[in-house]
């Protein structure tokens, strides 16, 4: 990423090294009225590592993401995101990428990607100049001036992901990012994401209901139970990101891990 992008101290270049704790959760609990969404969630990941959270639908996975992001406070427990515990400070360190691409239909792809810079008071032309090079680097050249309605689902998700990269937050929270895509596009996007994260390391928390996706994209996979969501299994995945996908998913280790995860989900 061009050096100018890391103008705020919260960015990946503001911090010194790729070590230390990225995200730490201690006894997180959350209820909505009578419904207990989350109970006693504990886990921790290193900075610039990737953690996947799988579990059945309605298991409070998205709630967990919103809590980490600082959009919501837990009822019990403590969240630490790169040393920050207050909700506002967590929000300053996290970028959320939801399942729906949430691109603004009246803005071109480029102007959607620049929005975080504009939000910080950078002029639109300056923001465009800074963002344009990323389009070429991440396979979106020539799509800068196209409106979202003219893009396919996969391309929209790429723009959406680029928008979170431009925001230059160290922590990326991905909420079923490819859930709306067909399986072929989905596989392409997973590879694309790994390549992009290889270039632009971030602490990634990925929520998905697809066990395979979690194992492929994460170093650690946490399995949540049905409501109330609790951690029922923690698996070390950490497959090489440059090996052919077919080789990985057919390897005995992958198959065994997938088996364990599915069993834990029940």
């Amino acid at each position: 990423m061009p050096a100018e992008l890391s103008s705020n101290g919260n960015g990946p270049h503001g911090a010194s090294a790729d070590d230390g704790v990225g995200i730490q959760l201690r006894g997180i609990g959350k209820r909505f009225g009578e419904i207990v969404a989350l109970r006693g969630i504990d886990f921790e990941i290193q900075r610039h590592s990737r953690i996947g959270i799988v579990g059945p639908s309605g298991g409070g996975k998205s709630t967990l993401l919103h809590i980490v992001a600082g959009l919501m406070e837990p009822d019990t427990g403590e969240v630490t995101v790169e040393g920050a515990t207050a909700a506002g400070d967590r929000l300053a360190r996290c970028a959320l990428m939801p399942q729906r691409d949430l691109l603004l239909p009246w803005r071109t792809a480029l102007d959607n990607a620049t929005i975080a810079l504009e939000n910080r008071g950078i002029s639109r032309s300056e923001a465009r100049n800074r963002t344009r090079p990323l389009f070429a680097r991440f396979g979106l050249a020539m799509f800068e001036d196209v409106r979202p309605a003219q893009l396919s689902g996969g391309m929209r998700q790429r723009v959406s992901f680029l928008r979170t990269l431009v925001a230059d937050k160290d922590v990326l929270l991905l909420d079923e990012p490819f859930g709306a895509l067909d399986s072929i596009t989905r596989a392409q996007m997973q590879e694309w994401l790994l390549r992009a994260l290889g270039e632009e390391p971030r602490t990634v928390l990925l929520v998905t209901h697809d066990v395979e996706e979690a194992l492929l994209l994460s170093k650690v996979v946490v399995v949540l139970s049905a409501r109330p969501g609790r951690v029922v299994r923690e698996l070390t995945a950490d497959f090489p990101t440059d090996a052919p996908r077919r080789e990985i998913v057919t390897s005995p280790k992958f198959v065994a891990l997938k088996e364990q995860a599915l069993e834990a989900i029940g």
Partner: protein
Amino acid sequence: MSAGAPPQLSEEDLLVPATRPTLGKRLGSMTRTYASAVVLTLGLLVAWELTVRLAHIPEYLLPSPTQILGDFKTDWVILWPAMWVTLREVLIGFVIATAAGIGLAVLLHLSGPLRRALYPLLIGSQTIPIVVLAPILVILLGYGILPKLVIVALICFFPIVVNGLDGLRAVDDDFIQMMYTLDATRWGIFRRVEFPGALPSFFSGMRIAATFAAIGAVFGEWSGSNAGLGYVMLEATPNLLTARIFAAILMLTVISLALFGLVSLLERIAVPWAPKRESA
């Protein structure tokens, strides 16, 4: 890893061709769109003409379309200047209503307490019959253009406020959370998400208002004036110049349609991204 190996982009990544249809094609589709309306209108006019002629209905009761057309020729010197007076009232009143409507909608959207306090009053204000209010405004503001502008604006601003406010509040919460994680301030969210997102709703309100504006101007002129199409009608009625009244109505219709068309045109320019809607 070098991202110089961008994923293969195919035609499929672009869903819609970026080219616009040619003028010829657009005219063709317009003809198809409006053909049924033209046929129906012509049919009604022929039926009207025949009824008046065959039943020997006197002109002062119901003039036939050809008699109304003939009246345009004899009364043109009266109708033409009157139309300009009314057109001016309609246009200025509509602009005032639009500015006030957008301003009030934004204000009510940004302030919850203000919205809760003012919204019931706003709805209540619409139950006051304008017909009753108009003469009072004339007493207050005189015979000039001012009371007409106030009446046009009063009638027009309500649909703009209500539609606009709905549009501002209908913005998906997910967009707002997304913006907060991208460092947006409240003002940034309003400016970059809520207001652009509500523009189609504002235009819906304006299109409804455009059809009310001419009625407002006529009410205003009826309550006290010495010019305008409403005044022409008022004068023609006791003299049983029914054809002239119909001619004036026709001109009012043209004003309304033109304003409606103008608003639709503005919408196309301001909101080119909006999904195409079936034209009314």
